[in-house]
């Protein structure tokens, strides 16, 4: 195992732990994107550039957009429920 691979593995471990420890969903989505970037570096260091490309497009684009849209929708609904309750 080269130094680059070892460092990449350690970064993935740190970023993954960070994603688990962050409780707030929006920050968690951003941390997940960063985690995907560290995974991309790891795959690249392990000589799998095709997988690295797939990982970066899915983790930094595909997943966060859907998750953020879903989060926004949930908050909209929460707001509406509050208003309905206030209105009676």
């Amino acid at each position, binding site marked *: 195992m080269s130094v680059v691979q070892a460092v990449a593995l350690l970064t993935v471990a740190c970023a993954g732990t960070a994603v688990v420890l962050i409780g707030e969903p929006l920050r968690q989505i951003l941390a997940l994107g960063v985690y995907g970037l560290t995974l991309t570096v790891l795959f690249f260091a392990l000589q799998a550039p*095709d997988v690295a490309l797939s990982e970066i497009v899915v983790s930094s684009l595909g997943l966060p*957009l859907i998750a953020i849209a879903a989060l926004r929708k949930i908050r909209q609904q929460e707001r509406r429920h509050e208003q309905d309750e206030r209105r009676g």
Partner: protein
Amino acid sequence: MSPRARLGLFALAGPGLLAVLVIGFLGLPAFGDYHGVYGLVVDGVELGERHATDMVTALNFDVRAFDTLGEEYLLFASVVGVVVLLRQLRGEHDDERGEAEREDGEGGERDGHDGSEHAFAGASDALRGLSLVLVPMLIALGVYLVIHGALTPGGGFQGGVVLAAGPIAVLVAGRYLAMKRLAPDWALEALEAAGAGAYALLGLGGLVLAGVFMKNFLPLGIPGHLLSAGSMPLNSIGVGLEVTGAFLLVWSEFLDQALLVRRGADG
């Protein structure tokens, strides 16, 4: 079960699990140790007999082209499922709200929102400028990844998602409706269907012209040239179109749900 009993059970099971894990890890092959024959065979066959230089793409579009067809239609079916589900729900929702408004008469005047207005306009000038630069760059990179699938790392899937990110950069600039104009739903549906159909048709072409479904039937060219590796570049373009359409369609359905402010829904 009381917490104490649970803790006791864990005290028994935990060390056992740890022991099994340690034994398992000790039996693992060393880091980077590779004994597979398959990879070596693919390396030899795909460059020599198919003139492809990126083995992963060659694997996807030649060795297991039929599996890729299944994955294509898996994506296709799941996107159609999402679209059908979300459009149905939205329709029901609109009807319900519409009736409520008719009932209380002035309900529609509660807020100034038009049905088509979007609530995402917080982009700074710097972000707008940057995303304007990003759009052509993303599209160029996506096209490059798709058409060079058989030559360099990348291919239809990766390039397709990068292409789909082009219109998303317009959204990041706070222009959701401009994004909708750039990539209208009907065009995305057509793109997705055309891509999926093209891949299947290439397979049928192999059946008709070479006698086996998905078999290469085009000239192989010189390894490393853009037009080489037989039908792989075409396969890659088919997959690229489908993935672009599929991702944009799913995103725009989700974003429709989240961003479009409906009458009385967000006042």
